[in-house]
């Protein structure tokens, strides 16, 4: 309680501070920023674990019943974009990427040398069997194998998902598919294994056998493995999907309000990343540009696509581990109220699993447990994420899938085809859901041009008209003075009157659209332009304002359980 009160006081102080600074300008000279400063040293941060059982329970029985706060994402810049940070580096959709770059991802040229493995420890997390080992070059890797029932699935899944999430901007671990030959294995003299008794005793040959008994074996006696490179820096443990680290001065925005974490709901739906939990993340303390900062990683993304490592997991991606409405429905009907996962047709490959794109609906997709960032996704967050997903070309997707090195070309083709279908389903669901005006530009002659992301992607018909409300904007006070309105049937319109021409002056333009099919487009996208020596510069874009918590979240959500 004391801790709660103290934190409340700090939150109130931050709110007061915001009010105080709100008396200043709306836009600063460096808006919109492209990168979070993150200038303070986090050297005092200490490792911290997160209990899996507690996290799952909290997610299922507390978070699952929470209403979204409907707060705007806290880490976006003034043009509704996510600046680069220790969490995310904008890549696809922001930077041109070739299919080869997507396929390469974060990986360097230094690949594992599987001629000899020296085992250091057992694998301590996750369901797939594995080891921590040094390769022939003495570099440390985390090896994990496929289940005998699903050969190539886990290793391929990790490889592909790592590439896709890297392209989406996340910090990822370098991962390679390699070979593990038990005949070329040594055990480090200091290697130990934690036993069920709790004791740590020397690693033995029998421990190797114990792990490999649960792994898919190649015909030549070797094992296909996924090798994740040891990250640089000091490992601090996982990050939470809510709150902030109290020992990281640069961690100012509650994680549930970070757009890139909320957006994992969309990216997770695309890739079916069901095992969305703190345990699959990692914070490391690293030196960058002379500063000690915490860098945040996604790791172990192999639960993507249709992986089914365990029994009875037909419902993955469709229901939480415990799902109240579905439980009630099946209880009352003795299971006759079928859920989609019971009837959806799958083309099954053991290396891909249960993954399909025809019945996929991203708005009702569910991970195994709902983290708070998942709950807090708003329609503008989803729009941002959907544009990232839609930025993947078919070629880029196929290039990423090819890195899974599936022996069955049909499995590879199937996985790529499903990812393409699901990409389109995401665009179809989220781009037209709110006003999809993007890339507004104001010419020196007063001509406003923009694009309609939903129409451009052919997920919506052009609206009957676009409407622009123009105003002079006082950056010091926030006051506006109307200039007039201009309507257009195209994505271009002229200012209805004279615009201010002095450097440093601002205009505000609210752009909405009339579409009977999409009434939400009447909610204007509010843009702000600043006059510079080179013309008008976009400094502000607000797709959706903050809404009070009582207002229904405009994000397309499942109104009932599937």
């Amino acid at each position, binding site marked *: 309680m004391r801790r709660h009160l103290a934190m409340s006081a700090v939150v*109130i102080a931050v709110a007061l501070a915001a009010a105080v600074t709100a008396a200043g300008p709306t836009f600063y000279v460096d808006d919109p920023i492209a990168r979070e400063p993150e200038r303070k040293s986090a050297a005092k941060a200490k490792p911290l674990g997160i209990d899996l059982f507690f996290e799952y329970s909290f997610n299922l029985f507390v978070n699952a019943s929470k209403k979204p706060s409907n707060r705007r994402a806290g880490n976006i810049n003034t043009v509704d974009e996510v600046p680069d940070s220790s969490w995310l580096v904008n890549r696809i959709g922001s930077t041109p990427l070739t299919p080869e770059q997507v396929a390469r991802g974060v990986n360097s040229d230094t690949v594992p040398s599987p001629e000899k493995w020296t085992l250091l420890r057992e694998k301590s997390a996750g369901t797939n069997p594995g080891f921590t080992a040094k390769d022939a070059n003495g570099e440390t890797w985390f090896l994990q194998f496929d289940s005998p029932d699903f050969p190539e699935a886990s290793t391929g899944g990790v490889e592909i998902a790592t590439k896709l999430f890297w392209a989406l901007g996340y910090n990822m671990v370098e991962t390679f598919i390699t070979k593990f030959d038990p005949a070329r294995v040594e055990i480090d003299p200091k290697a130990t294994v934690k036993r069920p008794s709790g004791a740590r005793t020397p690693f033995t040959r029998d421990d190797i056998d114990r792990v490999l008994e649960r792994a898919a074996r190649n015909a030549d006696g070797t094992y296909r493995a996924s090798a994740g490179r040891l990250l640089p820096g000091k490992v601090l443990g996982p990050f939470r999907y809510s709150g902030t680290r109290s020992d990281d001065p640069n961690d100012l925005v509650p994680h549930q309000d970070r757009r890139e974490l909320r957006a994992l709901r969309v990216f997770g739906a695309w890739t079916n990343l069901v095992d969305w939990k703190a345990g699959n993340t990692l914070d490391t303390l690293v030196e960058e540009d002379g500063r000690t900062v915490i860098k945040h990683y996604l790791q172990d993304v192999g639960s993507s696509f249709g992986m089914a490592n365990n029994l009875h997991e037909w419902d993955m991606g469709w229901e939480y581990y415990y799902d109240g409405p579905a*439980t009630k429905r099946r209880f009352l009907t003795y*299971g006759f109220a079928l859920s989609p996962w019971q009837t959806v047709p799958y083309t099954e490959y053991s290396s891909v699993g249960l993954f399909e794109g025809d019945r996929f609906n991203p708005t009702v997709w569910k991970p195994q447990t709902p983290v708070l960032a998942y709950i807090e996704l708003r329609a503008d967050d989803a729009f941002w994420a959907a544009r990232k997903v839609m930025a993947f070309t078919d070629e880029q997707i196929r290039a990423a899938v090819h890195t899974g090195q599936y022996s069955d070309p049909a499995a590879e083709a199937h996985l790529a085809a499903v990812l393409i279908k699901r990409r389109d389903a995401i665009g179809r669901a989220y781009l037209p859901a709110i006003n999809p005006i993007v890339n507004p530009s104001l010419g020196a002659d007063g001509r406003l041009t923009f694009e309609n992301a939903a129409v451009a992607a052919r997920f919506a018909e052009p609206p009957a008209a676009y409407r622009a409300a123009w105003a002079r904007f006082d950056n010091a006070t926030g006051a506006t003075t109307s200039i007039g309105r201009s309507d257009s049937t195209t994505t271009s319109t002229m200012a209805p009157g004279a615009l201010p021409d002095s450097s440093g002056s601002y205009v505000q333009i609210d752009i909405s659209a009339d579409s009977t099919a999409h009434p939400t487009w009447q909610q204007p996208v509010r843009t702000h332009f600043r006059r510079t020596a080179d013309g008008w510069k976009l400094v502000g874009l607000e797709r959706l304002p903050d809404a009070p918590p009582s207002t229904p979240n405009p994000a397309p959500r499942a109104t009932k359980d599937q």
Partner: protein
Amino acid sequence: MFRRAAVMVFAVLAHATALAAQDAPSRERVIEEAEQAKFEALKPAAPGKAEAYVARISDMFLSGQMHWHAFWQNAYSGGGFTIGAGYTRYVSSYNWIDVRGSITPSGYKRLEAQFFAPDLFKRRGTLSVLGGWREATQVNFFGIGATTPQENRTNFGFTQPYLGATLEVFPTRKLFMVRGDVEVSQWNQGPASGSVTSIEQVYTPQTLPGLGASPIYLHTQATVGIDSRPARGYTRRGGFYGVTIHDYTDNDNLYGFNQVDYTALQHIPILREAWVLAFRAFAQTTYDKSGQTIPFFMMPSFSGGSDLRAYASWRLRDLNSLLLQGEWRANINRFLEMALFYDTGTVAPTPGDLWHTSSKADYGLGFRFHGPITTPLRIELAKGSEGFVLNFSASQVF
């Protein structure tokens, strides 16, 4: 904590006020000021109290340090609600011993110690050595045969010291299994306690074989089977087909006999395990040894909670038994399953008579709280010709 919070509040407000007074600050500077404010009030990251508590419990489980556990198994079927506890300790990296005991309001008691080695023969086999003592005070006996009336109910009691070992091996790791058991025990049959008529008031040793006997058995058994279930404690697919041959050798050559058990069970998932049809057939046949008698308390019977669920435990007894069970299970979620079930069973003096003798049947509804491979709680309401019975169990029915 409040002092730290106060410092932070002051710092945040001071910086914000300073910023507002400055001319044209930058966005970066605003953020940096907030970072500075937090920097001045950093504190170690730590889990909340609830999480720390749960984490401590989790660690104890995962590190083999959770020694005490509940023990719900009573001394013998029919003992009623049971409380008990056990203490487990690893004696090597994987092998453990467990000392446990339980008691019921009706005086059923059990005290035993088990050594368990789960990883023999490169994880193909398990070995269990179990020794202990138990007492059952009010075991039902309704007479021998399939048509005994409910009113004939009497009770008997027994105490039993036992020591045995079980070795189970899956030579190919999957499917094919063999199991061997050897046990030495003494069944000291005696009068019952409680309000029900004690057995010796109705029967004599001449009318009921084995009444008052205390045979010391060397019990050996061997099982061969095909087991395709992913787990025994809870499954939605696979089956088990097996035969077990028992030899009960009486130290005094008075009550020795042989017994053969036949088991067939199958789980058939429907529509991605929306439902599971589960079937079980179980037959026991006994064969006396020349000149020896099978005592009444060793005859095949039905224990109640997992077979004829609407009937009192040990409702039917005879030299042979046959049980057929069917369940229609509905998957409610990953932790809860419902089941509509039907049981029918009978006993007979010869195996051939099992098909011609009248049987008892029941049906009912059950709820099972389960994990991926275990069933910690099973609650079932069963209805038979003798009324309703509510069963609680900590194991899978089959």
